[in-house]
């Protein structure tokens, strides 16, 4: 199996997740208005392929890693499994007690995978940093780029909320998040530039 660099891996994951967000916001809602059952199912399952692709990328990354990488992946997956278990049992109990409606229960299920990915990535980054991963940061996509991607995602969500629902509060929240992410991207880009300049001097 050809080993992808961390940068190539992260780029592919981000592109897949961006496609997931776009499909989830623009294609998936069509399932509600589709008449034919097969079309309804096709629209409803449209966000699944990018998720399966990300899972395949994650498996490829773990299998292709060396012993230290596999250890950090294991730590990340362990923490993510614990977090998702707690989330699952809490939302399951709340749903069983009818604290939330059916819509909320379904939404809780949809958020399991994003939660797993975020906790896994954070825990793995923390574990890698403990082993000195911070000394090799140039192998990763820069924080500025990551925040820029997130700004684009939140901008897309804002556009969707405004276009589909006309919800001023929701749009404002998403725009605020997009601006915050953009500001973070600019901050980290400036910091990275200053560090590079001081390293050259």
């Amino acid at each position, binding site marked *: 199996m050809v080993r992808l660099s961390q940068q190539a891996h992260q780029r592919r994951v981000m592109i897949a997740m961006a496609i997931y967000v776009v499909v989830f916001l623009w294609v998936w809602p069509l399932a509600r208005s589709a008449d034919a059952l097969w079309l309804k199912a096709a629209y409803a399952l449209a966000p699944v392929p990018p998720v399966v692709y990300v899972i395949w990328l994650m498996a490829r990354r773990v299998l292709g*890693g*060396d*012993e*230290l*990488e596999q250890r950090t992946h294991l730590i990340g997956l362990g923490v993510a499994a614990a977090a998702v278990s707690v989330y699952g049992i809490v939302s399951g109990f709340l749903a069983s007690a009818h604290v939330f409606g059916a819509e909320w229960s379904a939404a809780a299920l949809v958020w399991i995978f994003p939660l797993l990915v975020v906790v896994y990535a954070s825990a793995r980054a923390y574990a*890698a940093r*403990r*082993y*000195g*991963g911070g*000394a*090799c940061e140039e*192998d990763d996509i820069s924080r500025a780029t990551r925040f820029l991607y997130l700004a684009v995602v939140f901008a897309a969500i804002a556009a969707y909320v405004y276009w589909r629902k006309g919800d001023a509060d929701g749009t404002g929240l998403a725009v605020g998040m997009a601006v915050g992410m953009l500001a973070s991207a600019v901050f980290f880009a400036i910091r990275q530039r200053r560090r590079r300049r001081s390293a050259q001097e």
Partner: protein
Amino acid sequence: MKNQVRELREQRGWSQGELAEQLDVSRQTVNAIETGKYDPSLPLAFRIAKLFRHSIESIFEPGKD
């Protein structure tokens, strides 16, 4: 555990990346071994010893417990 990996690598004029490539591990792993943050497995320790043509015990020393 203390080790002489950095010294041996620098004696040969290799970068961390070059050593990592020869050991078939990532540069982060070489960095973690050199800084003592990670103790390699026995098979990897044997690969390191073979590459530098040294015995394992001359490269790796047990630390204080």
